[in-house]
């Protein structure tokens, strides 16, 4: 039987340390909506999404009330639209984005992901049409998120797609320039994208997935921080053990919520994503964990090691707590969504280069970092290419979600609002890389991809 101390521990995690389930994301297959008529396709996807996810928000809220644990977001991911809509003869992708937006609104979810294409090895005409429509689609919708896979350990990196993406980022930034280029927060590019990620902006329902799935992202940076306060001054073995035990407990809550949501919705349980995701709230920060570990600021020497320890032990604890672990599973370091990271940038402790180094050992990549609005397209290509190379060579997922804030420069702050937070504009290395990135073509797969 549960003891009073155990009950108190759980309650303190929720009420004082911000333990929550960050997202219940329902993946929905749209391949059966294929139609040569684009209008009919839009109608079909709207109907299918609203039918499948009709009870998603309600079930999420019921579970939150009954178990006493907040479920912050309810979201939807769909089959990459470049594939699902490939059958349309004359395709209006912006109209498809609006249909997705309306469907998300109708079922009360705050984001729908999957306005996506998989470009790691090549670009189909449908992919190209989707790429052209990403800037207007994101500027003209509220809830739609877009992602692209630009490389993989198996296929190498599609540099042409990297260059197109960099251009798209600039266009999204300028089309949403009146709102500090917030459209870029809904667009992410990946190397080794995963098909069952529940987190936005990169969620999509992979073609290897079933008809529908419930994927759950748990969170609890505050709980980890609180736990390691008790390990102050202790050696690394104790520190790692503390993180691991805490991750186990957090994940068990996620597993419970996922199974319950799956049962109530009649949709198979997909995976638990073990990511520690911060929010702008005090006490819900990865940066606070790094400080508690003993760093003056994130970005200080030792930061990469600290993130590596955190990431590895979250996985070690979490894997045993859940029957299926997947998604991105690691620690997120989105700059604008973590008050401690924002502070570190302002203090001059955290630079783009150190951020990039930290992404080598954690999920996912350069995330929600604001850069000057006048950053050249080729420089953005270079930043993406570096991050893709890290992912490709290390066989891990990496991503770039970067915001060249229109009209702002280093020292200014971009304000995105809500969970997206605010971001001080970070300096970007000003030396050129145009001749390099404009070589175009594909970077061949690395030697260790040949495992057969």
């Amino acid at each position: 039987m549960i003891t009073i101390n155990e009950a108190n521990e759980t309650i303190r995690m929720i009420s004082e340390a911000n333990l929550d389930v960050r997202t219940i994301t329902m993946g929905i297959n749209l391949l059966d909506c294929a139609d040569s008529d684009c209008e009919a396709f839009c109608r079909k996807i709207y109907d299918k999404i609203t039918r499948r996810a009709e009870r998603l928000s309600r079930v999420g809220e019921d579970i939150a009330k009954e178990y006493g644990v907040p479920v912050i977001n309810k979201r939807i991911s769909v089959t990459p639209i470049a594939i699902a809509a490939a059958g349309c003869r004359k395709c209006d992708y912006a109209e498809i984005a609006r249909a997705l937006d309306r469907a998300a609104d109708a079922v009360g979810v705050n984001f729908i992901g999957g306005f996506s294409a998989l470009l790691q090895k090549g670009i189909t005409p449908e992919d190209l049409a989707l790429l052209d429509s990403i800037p207007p689609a994101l500027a003209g919708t509220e809830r739609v998120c877009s992602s692209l896979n630009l490389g993989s350990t198996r296929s190498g990196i599609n540099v042409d797609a990297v260059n197109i993406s960099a251009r798209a980022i600039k266009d999204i930034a300028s089309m949403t320039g009146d709102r500090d280029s917030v459209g870029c927060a809904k667009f992410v590019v990946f190397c080794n994208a995963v098909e069952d990620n529940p987190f936005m902006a990169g969620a999509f329902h992979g073609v290897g997935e079933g008809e529908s799935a419930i994927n759950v992202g748990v969170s609890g940076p505050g709980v980890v921080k609180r736990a390691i306060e008790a390990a102050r001054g202790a050696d690394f073995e104790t520190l790692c053990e503390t993180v691991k035990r805490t991750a186990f407990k957090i994940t068990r809550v996620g597993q419970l919520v996922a199974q319950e949501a799956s049962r109530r919705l009649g949709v198979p349980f997909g995976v638990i994503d073990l990511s520690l995701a911060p929010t702008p709230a005090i006490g819900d920060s990865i940066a606070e964990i790094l400080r508690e570990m003993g760093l003056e600021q994130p970005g200080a020497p030792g930061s990469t090691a600290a993130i590596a320890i955190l990431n590895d032990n979250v996985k070690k604890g979490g894997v045993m707590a859940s029957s299926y672990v997947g998604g991105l599973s690691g620690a997120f370091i989105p700059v604008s969504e973590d008050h401690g990271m924002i502070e570190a940038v302002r203090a001059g402790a955290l630079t783009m280069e150190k951020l990039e180094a930290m992404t080598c050992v954690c999920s996912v990549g350069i995330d929600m970092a604001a850069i000057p609005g006048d950053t050249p397209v080729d420089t953005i290509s270079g930043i993406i290419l570096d991050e893709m190379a890290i992912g490709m060579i290390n066989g891990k997922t990496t991503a770039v979600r970067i915001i060249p804030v229109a009209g702002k420069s280093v020292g200014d702050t971009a304000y995105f609002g809500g969970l997206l937070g605010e971001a001080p504009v970070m300096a970007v290395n000003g030396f050129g890389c145009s001749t390099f990135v404009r070589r175009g073509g594909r970077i061949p797969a690395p030697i260790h991809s040949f495992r057969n």
Partner: protein
Amino acid sequence: MKGIVTVLGKDSVGIIAKICSYMSDKNVNVLDIAQTIIDGYFNMMMIVDLNGSAAPLASMASELETLGRDIGVVVRLQHEDIFNAMHRI
């Protein structure tokens, strides 16, 4: 289905009585009670059997929250599985 009721707040006369009479009104059977006083703060946990009650857990949880507010303590009712998941392998 079992629920766990936790109460935290300033100690005063009649906290247990008020919560137990609510339980009795809802036909909820109290299986176990543990309590301590930490630094003058009242801390109680009850394990309750909800099977005999017609009221949904979520609505009882919000009524208990209100009842707690009236007597100056924080009362929570949660499905026991969240505690089992976290503390039992």
